[in-house]
Structures are given as structure tokens and as C-alpha cells.
């Protein structure tokens, strides 16, 4: 703790851990994954209402064509990631671990793009659209938060009446170990990214934007700072490496020292946070009319042959990505969608990549197995690392005993599920497993109470 005082780099003050970074795929140029023969597009790739399919079995689709329409305010369009024939609409396993409605497309050999999409790599830095037109494009393009939470972006940009954002924060932290997709994107698409930042600033009508990047990505900081010099209102801030700095609330605290109150949103403290991946997608949707049909994904792991960063169409099976990285290693124990701290373990390799897949991480068997859970020795390490100032050990006990009121009073809903507590616990207790269970139960109880 003492060390931070001498360190000039900004960070969030409370809790946090520093797991081994293992960014083995860093600085690997982005490679394109060839189109697979079949593509599976789940209609629920975002938080909120699943989109409504607007194609039918046997129908022909062009790349970029809407195949499922937004079904509410908190929802997003889904576009055909490749041209071909709709093979079927059925229940398929997706990243949630359950079978859910999925549109399967048999991909044509000759790719045919929907009209009006600019597929060139040419940089278009002129922002000619008005604020409303930008928001419309983002909504049309089905942009969602690409850091993993997949919250529809247009919702965040539609600032509720009576609230006003004054700073836009761009999240280039990538605090999860192993993942490098955002890092590589910042290096390769820095100019485009900057245009994206300006589009978002225009959409939000803010005069200031800060790009927060952790200090382990010095090249990205340098590159973006160089471009940002052209603009007075965009700055790049280096942050001390600490997990979970990519958490919205932690990032806001670190960059502009504002604390989002419990149960409130960043907009309540006058800011909106967008991920760099999202920002790039916004650039493509607004400037190139290209909807969100592909994304950069890190495929990595200690025993993976060719860890790297790939750009893949949504709906590509995870197995295709793993093949591109040199195949599934012998000693595989877990395959994760996302990073090791918050990623989701996959139970099948046929699961398709979705808008929220930031990485595929392959953990060896011996690393992935959890050790046996022992008794709590009250070492208070979980309290010390909790970035939200909660008491994970206590929350776990309350949930196990069914004391939901007590858990609610102890702010269980503030938990951001970063996993720092379970990471640090010397007794290997399943702290987050039970806290997550408690969060679900408590929010159900609250909903029941409100409806009663």
C-alpha cells in the first residue's frame, strides 16, 4: 500500500489484485479467420431482450443484412455475419451453457455483401453525420459493449433527461490477464479508434474524452498519445497495472476520481464509459456503414502452439479459432470465453463466438482444477482486495445460511463479480460462486417486494 504513494500513475484506491499478466499473445498482428462452412448466430448476444428473427429457414442472406431485429429498448439488431442460406433456426448451445434460439447459416463460397457497406480499409476521418444520425447508425449497427458485458451501446448513449455527461471515458485497460485483443486493436487501428472517440463525443455532446490504458501497454499509450496531440479535448492516461481496473466504476474512480454511488450508473456522475472494441465498432458502423459482424479475439494459453489475435466473424465456432491457433493442446482442462478472472468456461467447443467474446483462453488441466475448499480462517484478505469494499467471506456465509436480508444490507448487489476474493482466498473458498447465487436470489426478492 505504501508503494502507491510514490507511484505517480493513477489507479483506483480500494482493493484490487495483481495476478500474473501472461500476455503471451501481445504484439501478435491480427489475423483473419477464414469463413467457416456453417455459422451459428444466437439471437441473444447482448444483455436485454433477445432480438426477433426476421429471416426464415431456406432464405438467402447477404453479409451485413439484418437477420434479427431489436425487440425493445434494451436490445440490439443482429446481422448476418456471412452470406448464405439460412439452414435452420433451432435451439443450440451457446456461451450461456444452455440451448437457446440460434440462426444457422450455410455460408456461400462467394461472399456477397449487403448494399451500402464500405468494405475497404480506407480511413474516413470526416464526421459528417449529425448527433441523431450517429445514434441511429449505432442502433442500426447492433453495437453492444464489447468488453464482455454486451450492454447495447445506444442505450448508454441515450442520456436520460435531466442528466448530463461531461466526460467520455474510453476503456483500453484490458486488465484481464492473458487477453491482448484490445491492445492489438489499439496498435493497429489507432487512427480509426480516434475517429470513433470523436464520434462518441459528438453523440454524447461532451467536450472531453480520456482514454485509460494500463501501463503494461506502453506502445499503445505512445501511439495513441501521439495521435491525441492533434486534439485538445482527447487525452491518454497511463494507469498502474491493477485488476479490476477495467471495471467501469474502478476506471471512473481511477481516471477522474468520481465514485459512482451504490446502485447508480456512471451517467449519474456525469460520465459514460466505452470499451476500445466498442469504439472501433462505432467507427465502422458510422463511417463505413458496417454493422457489428466481426470482432478481434485473442486465442491464447500457456500450452497453445500459436497464441495470437484473430479477427473472426460472429458465429464462428470456437473450435475454428482454436484450430487457427494451433489446435487444442493435449493437456487442456478448461476452455474459457473471456479472461481467466471473469471468463466463462465453455462446455462444448462448437459454441459460436458472439459479440461479447473478447478471447478464447485454454487453461491446462493442472492449472484449471480448483483446490479443495477449506474453512475460513478469517485472514481478511478477501476484504482487503475487494474493490467495492464488501466482505466476501461474510456474504458467502449469509447466503449459505439463507440470510438474504443480511446479505442485502451488506450490499451484496454492489458486487461486480470481479473474482478478486476467490482469487486471493488462501482457503480456496468458493466465495464468488455463492455471492453470485446470493445476488440472483436477493434481486429476485427485491423484485418480488416491489411488485407486492
Amino acid at each position: 500500500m505504501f508503494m502507491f504513494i510514490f507511484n505517480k500513475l493513477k489507479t483506483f484506491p480500494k482493493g484490487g489484485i495483481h495476478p500474473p499478466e501472461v500476455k503471451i499473445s501481445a504484439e501478435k498482428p491480427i489475423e483473419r479467420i477464414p469463413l467457416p462452412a456453417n455459422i451459428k448466430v444466437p439471437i441473444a448476444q447482448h444483455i436485454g431482450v433477445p432480438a426477433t428473427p426476421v429471416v426464415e429457414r431456406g432464405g438467402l442472406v447477404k453479409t451485413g443484412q439484418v437477420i434479427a431485429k431489436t425487440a425493445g429498448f434494451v436490445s440490439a439488431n443482429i446481422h448476418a455475419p456471412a452470406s448464405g442460406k439460412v439452414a435452420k433456426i433451432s435451439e443450440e448451445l451457446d456461451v450461456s451453457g444452455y440451448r437457446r434460439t440460434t440462426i444457422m447459416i450455410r455460408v456461400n463460397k462467394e461472399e456477397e455483401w449487403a448494399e451500402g457497406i464500405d468494405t475497404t480499409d480506407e480511413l474516413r476521418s470526416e464526421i459528417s453525420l449529425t448527433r441523431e444520425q450517429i445514434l441511429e447508425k449505432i442502433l442500426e449497427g447492433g453495437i453492444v459493449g464489447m468488453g464482455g458485458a454486451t450492454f447495447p451501446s445506444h442505450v448508454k448513449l441515450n442520456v436520460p433527461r435531466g442528466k448530463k455527461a461531461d466526460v467520455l471515458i474510453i476503456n483500453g485497460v484490458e486488465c484481464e490477464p492473458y487477453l491482448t485483443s484490445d491492445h492489438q486493436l489499439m496498435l493497429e487501428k489507432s487512427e480509426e479508434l480516434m475517429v470513433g472517440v470523436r464520434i462518441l463525443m459528438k453523440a454524447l455532446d461532451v467536450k472531453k474524452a480520456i482514454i485509460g490504458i494500463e501501463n503494461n501497454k506502453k506502445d499503445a499509450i505512445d501511439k495513441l498519445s501521439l495521435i491525441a496531440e492533434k486534439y485538445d479535448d482527447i487525452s491518454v492516461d497511463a494507469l498502474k497495472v491493477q485488476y479490476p481496473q477495467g471495471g467501469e466504476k474502478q476506471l471512473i474512480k481511477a481516471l477522474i476520481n468520481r465514485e459512482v454511488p451504490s446502485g447508480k450508473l456512471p451517467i449519474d456522475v456525469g460520465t459514460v464509459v466505452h470499451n476500445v472494441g466498442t469504439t472501433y465498432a462505432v467507427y465502422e458502423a458510422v463511417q463505413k456503414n458496417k454493422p457489428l459482424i466481426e470482432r478481434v479475439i485473442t486465442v491464447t494459453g500457456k500450452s497453445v502452439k500459436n497464441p495470437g489475435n484473430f479477427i473472426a466473424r460472429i458465429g464462428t465456432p470456437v473450435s475454428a479459432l482454436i484450430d487457427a491457433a494451433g489446435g487444442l493442446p493435449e493437456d487442456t482442462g478448461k476452455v474459457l470465453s473471456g479472461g481467466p478472472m471473469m471468463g466463462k468456461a465453455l462446455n462444448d467447443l462448437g459454441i459460436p463466438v458472439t459479440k461479447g467474446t473478447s478471447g478464447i483462453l485454454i487453461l491446462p488441466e493442472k492449472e484449471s482444477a480448483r483446490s479443495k475448499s477449506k474453512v475460513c480462517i478469517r485472514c481478511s484478505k478477501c476484504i482487503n482486495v475487494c474493490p467495492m469494499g464488501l466482505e466476501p467471506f461474510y456474504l458467502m456465509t449469509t447466503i449459505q445460511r439463507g440470510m438474504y436480508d443480511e446479505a442485502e444490507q451488506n450490499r451484496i448487489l454492489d458486487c461486480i463479480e470481479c473474482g478478486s476474493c476467490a482469487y486471493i482466498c488462501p482457503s480456496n473458498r468458493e466465495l464468488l460462486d455463492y455471492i453470485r447465487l446470493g445476488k440472483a436470489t436477493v434481486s429476485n426478492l427485491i423484485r418480488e417486494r416491489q411488485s407486492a
Partner: protein
Amino acid sequence: MESNLLTVSPSPHIHQEQTISRLMWDVIFAMLPAFAFSVYVFGLGALMVTLIAVLSAVFFEYMIAKHLLKREPDIMDGSAVVTGMLLAFNVPTNLPWWLVVIGSFVAIGIGKMSFGGLGNNPFNPALVGRVFLLISFPVQMTTWPVPFESRMSITDVVTGATPLGFIKDGLKNGESLISLMQEVPGHIDFFLGTQPGSMGEISGLLLIIGFLYMVIRKVITWHIPVIVIGTMFIFSGLLWFGNPDRFVDPLFQILTGGALLGAIFMATDYVTSPMTIRGIVIYSVGIGVITILIRVFGAYPEGISFAILIMNAFVPLLNKYLKPSRFGEKVKNG
């Protein structure tokens, strides 16, 4: 495929390497310098007492877990070894072996296992054992072997009083502090460790090395030891400043007796110390104040054991009412 099924579990999927047993062995490792030195100073007795204490503590833990609690004994977590070591550090090296065994039994049986084992005991087990012995067998527990004399014998040793006891007795008999102070060794001796006392009490330097080791290994944080010692220093300093003829100087208070041992190894026990920073402050200040109160005004020359036990009793209360400061609690933006 059968042999190669994917593992699925909720996040997080990685874990740091520190486990309970590694923490405990780190504590043991931190005690080794002081232990080695006390073997050098007190000779065979120190070795025997430690060996008996550790072995009997492990034995009782194993037997109670297996036969009374009927569960898989987990002695490899090292917590029983730590308790045994700490107990040995707290008793005179010439203590009869059967007393050590009784102390271990009370420490493990009553202090720890009767509450449900590791993680559930409200009081520091080693101190429960120590205080039990002190109250039940005050004579054996307060005759301290003199350093470097009779190193090769175990029970038949030259004994003397601890500096604290010596001063206390002297003051009670109406002698002046100044004359008494001239008869006890100087501060440097206390710091290096050539005072009569229990094994763990003798060398302040080596205890501080152990403390630094534990802080670097992230076994404990600096808070409890520093606040306890700081409080003792300030409180006894105020008394000394008020009346230097009656009260000993603060440095003396810190370096003698079990102050450092208690603050570094006993008060920091995970299970029996508070979990939040606010609780830790109150707990540590309480220990410091009560220790000096007992030393200066109480019946015993040394009071840190009692002080820690007393504050241990408040820990559940502190945990319940002193919550960590939540993120987003104070709405103060700017």
C-alpha cells in the same frame, strides 16, 4: 473424448499460490531465527520445550479431530505446529515437560477444537494455554532461566526474574526506579536478547526480522504490530513524561517482556483478529493500552497475553459493527 472432458466452473479460473498451509509454514519460518537464538541462549531446555509443545499440539489436534469431531484431521495445514511453537515461545525453557503437555492440551483442546477447530476459535489458542498455565502454576511459570547459564541442563537451572518482574517487585518494595534501572541490563541487551524471559521474548531484533519476513511474504499486514507497539510507546511515554521517577521509559516497555512477540505473532493471528481496518485500529490500540495498564497498575508484571485475550473477546463485536468503507458510500465527487 471421455478421458478429455472439459472442466467447467464459475469464474475466476485462476488462483494465487498462497494457501493456508503455506501461510502457516511462513509463520513458522518467521519464528525460526528467534527460535535458533533462544536455543543458543537457553540451550537444551529451549529445544526440549519447543519439541514437546509442537509434538503434543499436533498430537492433540489429530486425536481430537479424528476421534471426537470425527472428521478428517488436517494437521498438514500447520496451524497446530504454529500453536505449539507459540506456546513454547511463551513459557520458561525450564518448564517441566508435563506442564508443557498440559499447556498444549488446553491450547488445542479448549482454546481451539472445542470451538470447532481452525477458523472458529475466538481466542488465540496458544495464549489460552499460556494463561491457563500462568494462573494454575504461577511458580513454575514465573521462574525464568538466566541466559547462558546452565545451557546443557533441562530442568535444574539458574533462574532469575524478568526485567519487568524485577522492576515491579522492586517498586512494590518501595525501592526507587532509578536504582532499580541501574541493576537491569541496558536497552541494547534487550534488543539483542540477553534478558531472562521466555524463548520468544528475548531478542527484539530477531522478532522484528520475523515480522519483516511475514510482511514481505504478505502473510500479515503491518497494521496490527505497528499500532500495538505505537500505542504502547505513546501511552507509556505519556506516563513516563508525567512522572519519570515512577514509570519506566517507553523504550524499556517495548523491548522487555512479550511486547514484540505478542504484537507480531500473537495479536496478528488471523482467526482472532478483526477483519476490517477500522476494527484493527481499535483492537490494536486496545491491546497496547491494556498491556501498559496491566504492567503499570496490575498485579502481573507482564500483561500482553491478557490484553490480547481481552481484545480477542471484542473481535466478533468489532467485525459486526465496523464494516469496511464501501465503494460509492460517501458521495463525494470532484
